């Protein structure tokens, strides 16, 4: 669900085909019939944006028919844990959880916790605010639990306030019939999928859930994944071979750039960026961000080691290891928030490195308007992208609303090196770091980012070398000396990786994050990557052929944490440490050696902690995790069916309609996710949803997506001849019924209109797009791949022009996968007439103001 794996990850899909050949059943739940559906045993067509409803139906079936994996749920999840009596579910509060504060549109989360614990914190706050980015800033969070144990739990799971019972009541309304009416599928579809999952789970079997941006790019993106987590935990499919929830990431190192983040709210290894504090010390930071128990119990070690890696000798116990050098975040400084700030003149400079917001971001027109407000813009890419050329060529120039002479922004285009022109590591979608060897030097002025940022840093450091200003101390004291190599004096990426992996004061390399100390005697750039340079060897560069290893292939690359290939794999053994079954044997307790052993993977668990280990009440860190609690990142070691902390929009997923929807929320009184981030303004108007006047002006659901033949906004594919020819033109996919309704002819042109813009696309009328019956009405979907733009061998309008900015408040990702639109036959008007067309729609829908 939420993934079109055959199209977007074709090479990964070989394993699905292989599993299928061995008898696995493949189910594809997706609004469209895609190349993945074509290979599936069953395709269920659902309305875009109703995944939680569908999954809720599946969860409800599992709960109602008692199909959960009892031993797993009892011991490994928080199913038995009793919640606070003050907690109120969406059932009780008409679509809200307890703690809702309508004045600031945020949840207070005090009531969401385990019974008997104190107020939950997030980033040092007890209220979820927009500057707190869900899990990403709260990976280090969790409640303080004495001895790593929830105060009250009921192993019979019968207590009315225990999680399993709360869950059962919460999902009771997701009946097959109710779900079918929301999703536009058949009730049997829900039952069949639930039955297939349940049948194929348990001791002997496991099922996997695969998702991608079809789940994340929603105002309820995180809760989509939470719903899958609940299902997989109930069925006992986490931490076991053949199970899991597989996030298929779309870019070579998007996983790595989250782990070692170029993200505003986290530091490497998901350590939160500090917030402004009354008492801005390291101790306060650790106290407010790290629970005392579980792997995060050692947050202070991780943080001190990071500070030592960055500020080296300058970081001492006396100066709190330069903790004060870190800048603070106190609001949403994520991409879209910053682009809006830019539009208002609050940002002077921008650096776009391999990124192309002028066509790649939602509401591209707003993005370009924001870029025009910059003083300076730096773009690094293989060729000038639409972003680099926004001042000269854009749809706005074509419309006549801007001219190059009218744009003050100074633009630098710097050519970049390709992946074969530099050494370095990518982290793939399964946390595996794989090293790339440099094949040759980049041409002309092209340079690697390593070379560029290092030299830029050196120039800036030189210019500030004599500064007395305290704000320049962090940059002056930064460790910035690396061995240089090659024609262009490039810092050796191998040395950078060694810094990330970490070493002791004496220069010896660290083996794993267990070695990290909070006294400044170790340095480590990213605690989860500690050990990737173990023994002074670049472990990510290991390339022992897969054919010479077993299927785990542990001598190929290196996976964080601790080169673990299946995370939480303690769960592959039963509470006593025996494999759940011979068939699904993976990690188990070996009594004779007194340690965890496995088929070849490392245990994601303290290696010699016996299954019957019972932590003392005063234990901290990993020592506080019992021998039968696999989820060591959580303070209680349990998988969370219910999330007492970490999320801004509720401890459980609930179905909310997308920001723009032709239907009312049939389950709750609350139409959309109450915490979603919206930015109503002239350049970002929203369409009325069902039940509001003007909703019928944009009657169709619009979904954007990718094709196998192209890559994202197209910079790396529209410019490559062999790919450009395969999908040469922007097209939209519509059903024969919609085509008949709107007079669209196959192969000819259509204009898709939203309140943001109007674009033209060739029409593909296809049986693969199905009108669905939802709430007694027919729903039509307009599918639009978004690969095109103004630069390249093949060009065309960009579907991203149409989308509004409406974000999931946990992670600030916009709802690309569903909005509403209208579609007309024929090409779009040119010049000012396009603006007039959009204006007329705005007026009719009443969204002008």
């Amino acid at each position, binding site marked *: 669900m939420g993934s079109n794996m055959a199209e977007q990850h074709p090479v990964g899909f070989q394993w699905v085909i292989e599993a299928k050949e061995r008898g696995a059943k493949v189910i594809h739940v997706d609004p469209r019939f895609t190349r993945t559906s*074509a290979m599936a045993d069953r395709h269920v067509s659902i309305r875009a944006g109703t995944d939680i409803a569908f999954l809720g139906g599946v969860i409800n079936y599992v709960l109602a028919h008692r199909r959960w994996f009892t031993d797993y749920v009892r011991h490994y999840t928080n199913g038995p844990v009793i919640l606070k009596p003050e907690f109120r579910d969406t059932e009780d509060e008409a679509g809200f959880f307890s703690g809702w504060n309508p004045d600031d549109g945020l949840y207070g989360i005090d009531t969401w916790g385990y019974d008997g614990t104190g107020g939950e914190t997030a980033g040092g706050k007890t209220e979820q605010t927009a500057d707190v980015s869900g899990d990403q800033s709260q990976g280090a969070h969790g409640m303080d639990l004495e001895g790593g144990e929830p105060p009250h739990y009921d192993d019979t799971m019968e207590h009315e306030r225990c999680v399993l019972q709360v869950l059962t009541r919460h999902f009771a309304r997701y009946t097959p019939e109710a779900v079918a009416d929301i999703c536009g599928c058949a009730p049997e579809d829900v039952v069949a999928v639930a039955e297939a999952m349940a049948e194929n789970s348990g001791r002997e079997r496991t099922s996997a859930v695969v998702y991608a941006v079809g789940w994340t790019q929603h105002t309820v993106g995180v809760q989509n994944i939470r719903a899958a987590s609940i299902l997989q935990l109930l069925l006992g499919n986490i931490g076991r071979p053949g199970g899991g929830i597989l996030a298929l990431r779309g870019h070579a190192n998007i996983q790595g750039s989250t782990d070692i983040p170029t993200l505003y709210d986290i530091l490497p290894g998901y350590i939160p960026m500090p917030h402004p504090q009354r008492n801005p010390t390291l101790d306060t930071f650790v106290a407010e961000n790290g629970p005392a128990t579980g792997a995060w119990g050692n947050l202070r070690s991780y943080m001190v080691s990071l500070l030592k890696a960055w500020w080296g000798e300058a970081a001492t116990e006396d100066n709190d290891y330069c903790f004060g050098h870190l800048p603070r975040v106190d609001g949403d400084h994520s991409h879209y928030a910053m682009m809006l700030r830019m539009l208002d003149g609050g940002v002077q400079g921008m650096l776009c490195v391999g990124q192309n917001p002028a066509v790649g971001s939602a509401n591209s027109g707003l993005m370009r308007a924001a870029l025009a407000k910059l003083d300076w813009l730096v773009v690094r890419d293989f060729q000038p992208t639409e972003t680099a050329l926004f001042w000269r060529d854009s749809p706005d120039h074509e419309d006549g609303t801007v001219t190059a002479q009218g744009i003050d922004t100074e633009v630098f285009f710097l050519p970049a090196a390709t992946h074969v022109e530099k050494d370095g590591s990518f982290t793939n979608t399964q946390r595996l770091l794989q090293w790339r060897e440099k094949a040759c030097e980049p041409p002309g002025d092209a340079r690697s980012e390593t070379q560029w940022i290092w030299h830029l840093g050196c120039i800036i450091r030189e210019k500030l070398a004599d500064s007395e200003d305290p704000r320049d101390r962090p940059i002056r004291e930064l460790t910035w000396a690396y061995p240089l190599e090659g024609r262009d004096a490039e810092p050796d990426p191998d040395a950078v990786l060694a810094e990330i992996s970490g070493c002791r004061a004496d220069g010896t390399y660290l083996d794993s994050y267990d070695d990290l100390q909070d006294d400044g005697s170790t340095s480590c750039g990213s605690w989860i990557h500690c050990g990737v340079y173990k023994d002074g060897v670049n472990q990510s560069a290991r390339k022992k052929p897969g054919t010479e290893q077993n299927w785990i292939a542990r001598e190929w690359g290196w996976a964080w944490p601790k080169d673990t290939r299946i995370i939480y794999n303690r769960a592959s053994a039963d509470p006593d440490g025996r494999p759940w079954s011979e068939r699904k044997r993976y990690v188990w307790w070996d009594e004779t050696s007194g340690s965890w052993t496995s088929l070849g993977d490392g245990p994601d668990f303290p290696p010699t902690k016996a299954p019957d280990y019972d932590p003392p009440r005063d234990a901290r860190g990993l020592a506080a995790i019992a021998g039968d609690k696999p989820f060591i990142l959580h303070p209680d070691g349990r998988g969370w069916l219910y999330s007492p902390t970490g999320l801004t929009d509720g401890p459980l997923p609930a179905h909310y309609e997308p920001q723009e929807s032709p239907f009312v929320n049939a389950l709750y009184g609350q139409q959309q996710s109450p915490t979603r981030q919206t930015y109503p303004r002239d350049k970002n108007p929203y369409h009325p949803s069902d039940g509001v006047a003007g909703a019928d002006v944009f009657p169709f659901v619009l979904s954007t997506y990718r094709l196998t033949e192209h890559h994202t906004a197209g910079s790396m594919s529209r410019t490559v001849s062999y790919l450009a020819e395969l999908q040469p033109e922007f097209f939209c996919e519509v059903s024969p019924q919609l085509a008949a309704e709107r007079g669209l002819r196959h192969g000819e042109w259509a204009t898709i209109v939203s309140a943001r813009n109007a674009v033209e696309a060739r029409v593909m009328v296809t049986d693969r797009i*199905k009108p669905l019956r939802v709430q007694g009405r027919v729903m039509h979907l307009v599918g639009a791949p978004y690969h095109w733009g103004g630069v390249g061998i093949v060009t065309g309008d960009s579907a991203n022009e149409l989308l509004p900015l409406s974000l999931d408040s946990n992670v600030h990702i916009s709802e690309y996968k569903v909005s509403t639109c209208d579609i007309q036959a024929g090409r779009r008007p040119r010049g000012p007439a396009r603006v007039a067309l959009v204006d007329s729609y705005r007026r009719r829908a009443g969204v002008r103001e």
Partner: protein
Amino acid sequence: MKLEVHTWPATYGEQAQPRMGFFTDTSICIGCKACEVACKEWNHVPMQLQGFTGNSYDNSVDLGADRWRHVAFVEQRLPADATDGGSLVQIAERGAAIDAGVQTYQEGDGVRWLMASDVCKHCTDAACLEVCPTGSLFRTEFGTVVVQEDVCNGCGYCVPACPFGVLDKREDDGRVWKCTLCYDRLRDDQEPACAQACPTNSIQFGELDELRERADRRLARLRDAGQDQARLYLADEDNGIHGAGAFFLLLDEPEVYGLPPDPVDTVRDLGSIWAAAGAAALALGAGLAAAVLGGRG
């Protein structure tokens, strides 16, 4: 007149290699077109921009001088009661959905989307190489059929001779081009580029004998699983081209994928062709004689 056109392996003597070929199993083709790109990249085949065709996801149209692998896309509506679905979608299950009145259209219908990567068949009896006057087209030591770019003079005879429409002349180049089964890679013990790239192993490369056995096992499995429409195409020798070096497992009739149902090597009729031409020549001679010598004057 019967010509022994099977010149492989005999003419290569000790240098002959096992006959190599492709088994393209379209039941696991995901239509990604990696084969098209890998082929072009290895063989430096030029871009052929043909615009939006509307032929499902196929914008490459057909095999030709600038397309040596071509992925066909066929969208089919099938009746819900079709038990011979053949596609991997369980169409029968659709019926229940319809009864519930949920799906508003395709009432009674399901969809299946066939994808198949087409390529030169490297026929046992290959018309193209038989009619080639220059010997540019020849059979290699691997039993494959290759155009030699240093010999071809662009006479174009092979183009209409091929019963599959594989060969074509590259306009600005003047020569004819087609799949070489990566002759250079074969000589280096490497897989052809398309087969190496194919993510799902839909394109399988190997010794033809072994591939044929594998295909038979696959067909048996699919048919056991109820895929009544699965069939092998050109996997045998009892057809008009005496079997192909590149054969296919299809899920529908060949013509649905743009393949001829009964391809025949034209040279099979060479005897009657030469006989007729000879007879006509004699008739012309007789006519001439009659006109000149048989006259009254």
